[in-house]
């Protein structure tokens, strides 16, 4: 089948998700990517793989979101000279992914005038000719650590100075490096340097059994453990042809919405706190704690880790659980509405929120921003509505959007998404009450060597993608996990421009992106 009037011939991948795969040559890939851009569809991810042991060279994989679902295009690269056209010229968001693909695999985007050849994940702690994801690389090797200067872009002029921040930040936050160029209090430019938390997750996958690695997928970014585990399971189920029992699907949706609410509650508290209303922090953190305690009591884990497994779910909802969740939904909803009124009417808070850290809708589109941050800037993408997999195909999820793209908009989207997820939770519980008790998981059949599957799930932060290739003897050949933060971090660099330095923590919190999800 063909999409967007392009000659590329796609085949549908098996499984619950609408996903399609095509192999292209350079011209075909570039033409398709350009068409995706022109037609207002979106770029999702870019990664590579080493196929030299299979009588081929390397391969570049690019994922696009095209109305009908996920379109995946593979470009074969030669073993001797693995180069490909620079896609960052079409989608700026591809820049960091291309640099990462080089650091991990040694496949290179062909340099154009705008080409950025700086390393991304490799901070000189392993040699420049050591490519961990090549299949013949011994990844257990350890090298002397060294600290390398990074070529930050310098802003020059009268009165410009730099504020270097990180990698260790002042607070309980993940490490990353920010370089501010400022005049007085005003930020002229922010440049990020990430990769500090890179711990070789993608290589680690290759050492784990396919049936067990959902635990690792659930720890790519712990705050999105449910979404990652579901995306991984979806990929594993797609490539083995496994269908989870219906009850398990309803339970998965229940867990995913619980995760969304837990994170939004925490963020709403911290957003109040960063605008000097510590009352908001204690109130929302109390609600979050109540929420996590019930998760722990019902599912055995406060953050719901290890709850979703390939083939189904690990735990049933205990008999009294439904009633407990319903009661909690009511009390949380009541309290969050009170807190929303307090936030809305608090002049000091609104003064800090409104017009701060604005990400204009056009820029959000140009940078391929999706998820919560995208929705607060008019990017109407939500997989639960647009490419729903069971059980989301059984009800209409309201997409919450806003046009202003400022901190206030991101706060509003969070509030509204909490209410929507509470509504969905009630619907899900009603369905669960009607489902027969039955099986919680289907046994995952053995995977064929080389079988390929993808999972794509709307986590609380945005859409999470897992692309999985099975290896020999129940192993994994390649697993790429993709966090929406990849595409949203660069947008933060733009959103802070022209704001004052003291507003950066607030703006950053309103984005609340994952460092480890991108560093892998």
């Amino acid at each position, binding site marked *: 089948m063909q999409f967007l009037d392009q000659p590329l011939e796609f085949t549908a991948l098996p499984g619950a998700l609408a996903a399609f795969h095509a192999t292209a040559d350079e011209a075909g890939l570039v033409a398709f990517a350009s068409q995706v851009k022109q037609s207002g569809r979106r770029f999702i991810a870019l990664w590579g793989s080493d196929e030299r042991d299979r009588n081929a060279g390397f391969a570049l994989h690019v994922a696009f979101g095209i109305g009908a679902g996920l379109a995946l295009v593979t470009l074969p690269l030669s073993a001797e000279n693995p180069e490909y056209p620079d896609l960052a010229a079409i989608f700026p968001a591809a820049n960091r992914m291309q640099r990462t693909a080089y650091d991990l695999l040694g496949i290179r985007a062909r340099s154009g005038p705008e080409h950025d050849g700086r390393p991304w*994940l490799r*901070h000189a*702690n*392993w040699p420049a000719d*050591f490519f*961990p994801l090549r299949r013949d690389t011994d*990844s*257990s*090797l*350890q*090298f002397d*650590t*060294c*600290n390398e200067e990074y070529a930050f872009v310098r802003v020059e002029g009268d009165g410009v100075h730099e504020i270097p921040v990180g*990698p*260790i930040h*002042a*607070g*309980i936050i*993940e*490490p990353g490096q920010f370089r501010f160029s400022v005049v007085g209090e005003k930020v002229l430019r922010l440049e990020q340097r990430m*990769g*500090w*938390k*890179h*711990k*070789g*997750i993608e*290589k*680690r996958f290759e050492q784990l059994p396919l049936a067990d690695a959902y*635990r*690792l997928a659930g*720890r*790519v*970014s*712990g*705050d999105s*453990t449910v979404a990652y585990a579901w995306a991984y399971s979806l990929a594993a189920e797609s490539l083995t042809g496994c269908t989870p029992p219906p009850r398990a699907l309803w339970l998965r949706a229940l867990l995913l919405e619980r995760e969304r609410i837990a994170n939004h509650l*925490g963020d709403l508290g911290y957003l109040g706190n960063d605008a000097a209303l510590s*009352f908001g*922090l*204690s109130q929302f*953190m*109390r609600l*979050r*704690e109540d929420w*996590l305690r019930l998760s*722990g009591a019902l599912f055995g884990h*406060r*953050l719901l*880790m290890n709850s979703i497994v390939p083939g189904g779910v690990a735990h049933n909802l205990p008999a009294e659980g439904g009633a407990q969740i319903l009661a909690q939904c009511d009390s949380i909803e009541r309290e969050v509405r*009170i*807190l929303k*009124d*307090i936030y809305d*009417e*608090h002049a000091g808070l609104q003064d800090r929120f409104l017009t701060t850290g604005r990400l204009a809708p056009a820029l959000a589109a140009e940078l391929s921003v999706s998820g919560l941050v995208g929705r607060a800037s008019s990017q109407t993408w939500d997989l639960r509505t647009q490419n729903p997999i069971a059980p989301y195909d059984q009800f209409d999820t309201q997409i919450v959007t806003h046009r202003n793209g400022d901190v206030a908009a991101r706060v509003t989207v969070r509030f509204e998404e909490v209410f929507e997820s509470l509504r969905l939770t009630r619907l899900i519980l009603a369905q669960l009450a009607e489902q027969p008790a039955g099986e919680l998981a289907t046994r995952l059949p053995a995977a064929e060597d080389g079988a390929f599957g993808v999972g794509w799930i709307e986590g609380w932060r945005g859409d999470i993608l897992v692309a999985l290739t099975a290896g020999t003897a129940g192993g994994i050949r390649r697993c790429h996990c993709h966090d929406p933060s990849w595409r949203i971090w660069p947008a933060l660099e733009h959103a802070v421009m022209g704001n004052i330095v003291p507003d950066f923590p607030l703006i950053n919190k309103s984005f609340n992106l994952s*460092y*480890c999800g991108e*560093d892998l």
Partner: protein
Amino acid sequence: MYQLLKQIFVTGLKTETPPLPDEAMRVIGQRLEQAILDKLGRALVIRHIDAGSCNGCELEIHALGNPYYNLEALGIKFAASPRHADLLLVTGPVAKNMQVALQRAYDATPAPKLVVAVGDCGCHDGGTAESACIFGESYASCGKVANVIPVDVAVPGCPPTPLTLMQGILTAICGAKA
């Protein structure tokens, strides 16, 4: 304003009783003299360092500040600089890219200092055990925190619950009674 005050009043006091120290978490025999620990008492300043976690451990460290655990009420608070800290609370595994930063933060912390390693990743080696560090050691990961800086108390769990975390911190400052 009325709504805000009413909400505070209706919420009331939520703080629960803190847990007792747990000697099983101690990694190396007490390094600080009892006299120093007594001086620290419970007025302790913590610097948190994420050396490569999955951010799950951070979520539970955040929870320590909520009204239920209310760590500050015990006189324990978090500081922004290692130079102001008595104790480093380190989550891991230590990513290779963070090794130098962690070492520098440790060196910048004035002696006498304590280190508490957090989470299965921060406390355990890689391997196949249920409680092993799931990321293992590799070209990119130095493994547990003790591979890079000396650790006094290890708080396992994936992630440890806020109560276990509190227990670990209290164990570090209470000193061995034996």
